[in-house]
């Protein structure tokens, strides 16, 4: 690719092929979401069926292709039908049988199958003049603004042409042909973009700190070591729109004067790795990576490095040590990576989602981006909604959306009529937002102010059945496992924290233990070497802060209010509800249940091992945890 004109020509051709120019009004595109979650839910047979049926019916105006994550995990497999000039129709929970009916009725007959659409699965009523609710009008979608995810679920991630058709590589071309590196940095700085990996450091400033440092070789690193349990937006971007990361890294390289990039991807994401490699090869082939890009004299190339399952490698300096082929242990800062990073050279490292915003900011301008969001957090943020919530999935919303909107409207509330208790953000480094603060506007600073953090964007919803002490213990078990062992406060401190939580959840805690927990947390935060240790106590501190009464219930009353901590609960049969069917007594592995037919049974708590088998068996809801 030597010039903008050449890129434009490819773009026009690709747009015509995809019928995006209004050139083929009867052209129909069918896309099937084939990200990891779609494939797990059975999207491959759906894609096969549609392809076969389309062939069988000789529908020459229909193209069928794969795409990345459409964003509604619980409705996978998802199929979308796009007809020029019409609202797209989105089908959910499709199987081979439904796929055949969609081809027969919608593609051949021209009438959408209303009952299979996402709108109808979500229970949204179509407006009067419509037969189906378009996806964009559903509660799940209408508050969303897609910037980082704009191409995910629209283009075929394995097609460079598809990406170019959606303005791909235009931003790189613009930077190389119209802007100086300083101008590029200024645009990113003015946009207010901050690091989406969790820290929230201003991206423009990061680039500006690195740019003036002279060195024979500088590096751009993309952090795709998405280790927070519950977060999967980076995977979705890599699986759904890998070229935008390549383009953004090349732009960053131009801005700071680096000619070499590394993407560090966790090895648990094989599909992301495969698609990114396909994209890198295609870009290289097309001259979008390599020497003298767009005839500007700027060279840039990149390669993938795989992680091997170490959470700490998501930390900036540990990631660099890992790329160098070592144990992924963090390094003290300063010197900062901008001065001495990868291979001891000046380096800029950004997260996948941060990079995914860059090409759009270059194309649409800093003002467009900074018009979204709040005073100090600009743009949008992708959240992975999970846990006890009706609509799980990936949502991209403007910064400053309230937690209430996210949980109640977009997420569709809590299943089974349970009460919302808290939302956990930031994974093992984050805290929780309790129900009392549900009207918090979610941005970097508001979350920090309540002792929480944005983190990479995992948002796990918890209901009244979740024990907050157990939750804190779960995260500490994670950090104890993942602490790299280099510095003592983290290595030993997290272990001691875990032991104290274990003591409390097993019913042996005292009120002093809670105070000691807090004191130890502060010590670990202040003295650990890297982000892992500095944030590891956050789940404990946040739960003590907002749910101290639960800790007290564990140590004083020796009760677990949520009925989770096994040592603190007993099973009990309600004599009013028990019909004496004997099902539970037969199921009990230790023979702790006694009683005669048609008479209420009782559980001998000294024998009971609290396995819960009786409760699962009882058809009359007679067995309770107290």
């Amino acid at each position, binding site marked *: 690719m030597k010039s903008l004109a050449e890129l434009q020509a490819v773009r026009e051709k690709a747009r015509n092929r995809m019928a995006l120019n209004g050139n083929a009004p009867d052209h129909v595109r069918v896309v099937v979401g084939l990200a990891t979650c779609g494939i797990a*839910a059975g999207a491959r047979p759906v894609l096969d069926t549609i392809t076969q049926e389309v062939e069988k019916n000789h529908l020459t105006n229909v193209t069928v292709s794969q795409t990345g994550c459409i964003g509604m995990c619980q409705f996978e497999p998802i199929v979308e039908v796009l007809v020029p000039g019409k609202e797209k129709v989105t089908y959910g929970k499709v199987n081979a049988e439904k796929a055949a009916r969609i081809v027969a009725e919608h593609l051949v007959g021209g009438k959408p199958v209303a009952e299979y659409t996402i709108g109808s699965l979500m229970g949204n009523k179509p407006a009067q003049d419509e037969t189906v609710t378009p996806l964009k009008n559903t509660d799940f979608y209408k508050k969303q603004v897609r910037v980082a995810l704009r191409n995910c679920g629209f283009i075929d991630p394995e097609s460079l042409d598809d990406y170019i058709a959606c303005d791909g590589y235009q931003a790189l071309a613009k930077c190389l042909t119209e802007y100086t590196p300083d101008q590029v940095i200024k645009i990113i700085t003015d946009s207010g973009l901050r690091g989406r990996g969790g820290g929230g450091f201003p991206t423009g400033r990061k680039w500006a700190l690195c740019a003036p440092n002279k060195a024979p070789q500088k590096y751009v690193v993309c952090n795709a070591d998405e280790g927070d349990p519950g977060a*999967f937006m980076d995977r979705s971007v890599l699986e759904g729109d890998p070229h935008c990361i390549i383009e953004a890294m090349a732009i960053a390289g131009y801005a700071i004067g680096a000619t070499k990039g590394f993407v560090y991807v966790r090895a648990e994401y094989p599909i992301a790795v495969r698609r990114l490699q396909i994209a890198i090869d295609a870009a290289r082939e097309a001259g979008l990576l390599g020497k003298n890009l767009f005839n500007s004299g700027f060279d840039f190339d990149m390669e993938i*490095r795989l992680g091997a399952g170490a959470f700490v490698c998501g930390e900036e300096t540990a990631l660099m040590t890992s790329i160098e082929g070592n144990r992924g242990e963090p390094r003290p800062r300063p010197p900062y990576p901008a001065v001495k990073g990868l291979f001891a050279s000046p380096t800029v490292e950004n997260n996948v989602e941060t990079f995914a915003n860059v090409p759009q900011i270059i194309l649409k301008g800093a003002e467009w981006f900074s018009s979204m969001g709040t005073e100090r957090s600009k743009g949008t943020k992708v959240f992975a909604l999970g846990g006890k919530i009706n609509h799980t999935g990936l949502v991209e919303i403007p910064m400053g959306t309230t937690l209430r909107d996210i949980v109640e409207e977009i997420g569709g509330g809590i299943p089974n009529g349970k009460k919302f208790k808290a939302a956990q953000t930031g994974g093992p480094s984050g805290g929780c937002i309790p129900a009392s603060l549900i009207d918090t506007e979610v941005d970097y600073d508001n979350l920090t102010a309540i002792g929480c953090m944005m983190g990479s964007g995992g948002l796990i919803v918890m209901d009244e059945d979740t024990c907050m002490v157990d939750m804190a213990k779960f995260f500490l078990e994670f950090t104890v496992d993942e602490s790299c062992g280099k510095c003592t406060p983290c290595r030993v401190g997290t272990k001691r924290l875990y032991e104290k939580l274990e003591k409390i959840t097993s019913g042996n805690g005292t009120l002093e233990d809670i105070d000691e927990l807090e004191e130890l947390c502060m010590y670990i935060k202040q003295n650990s070497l890297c982000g892992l240790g500095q944030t590891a106590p956050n789940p404990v501190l946040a739960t003590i802060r907002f749910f101290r009464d639960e800790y007290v219930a564990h140590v004083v009353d020796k009760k677990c209010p949520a009925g989770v901590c096994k040592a603190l609960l007993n099973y009990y049969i309600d004599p009013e509800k028990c019909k004496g069917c004997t099902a539970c007594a037969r199921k009990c592995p230790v023979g702790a249940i006694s009683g005669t037919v048609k008479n209420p049974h009782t559980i001998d708590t000294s024998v009971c091992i609290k396995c819960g088998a009786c409760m699962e068996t009882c058809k009359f809801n007679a067995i309770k945890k107290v």
Partner: protein
Amino acid sequence: MQKKISSIPFKGTAEQAAQLQKVIDANKSDRSRLMMVMQQAQDIYGYLPFEVQQMIADGMDVPLEKVFGVSTFYAQFALSPKGKYNVSVCLGTACYVKGSGAVLQKISETLGISPDECTPDGKFSLSACRCVGACGLAPVMTINDDVYGRMTPDQVAGILAKYAD
């Protein structure tokens, strides 16, 4: 976390050794590719026995203790062999909240092995893994490349039976 080191004798073939040598030759000019070589070695042998780590150390011209340091640091490097079918249960937050602990427990009881162990006949191994990123389908378990979502302990026996061959 201490890794389980295999006591099963090393049974590498000449063919495997040749494959590994090829990988080493392609990467030995750049020592930062040590992890890549180790990952590919694990693909060849299924795990990284001491003998293979020695071959890598010699081939890449790095001290054996460095190779051993890396292999013990990262969770993905296995020092003991995996079963024909590796059952992996996700203990990430979303799965945990939705009860994957009980699923793991059930599998452990059914197979008679703890996580990171392999059944004596070499058929099944069990592991508890971190988030596989399919939180919408929680709780999730995988058997080799097959993914099972929305798991309950009751489904365990039926699913394991599918891998009886």
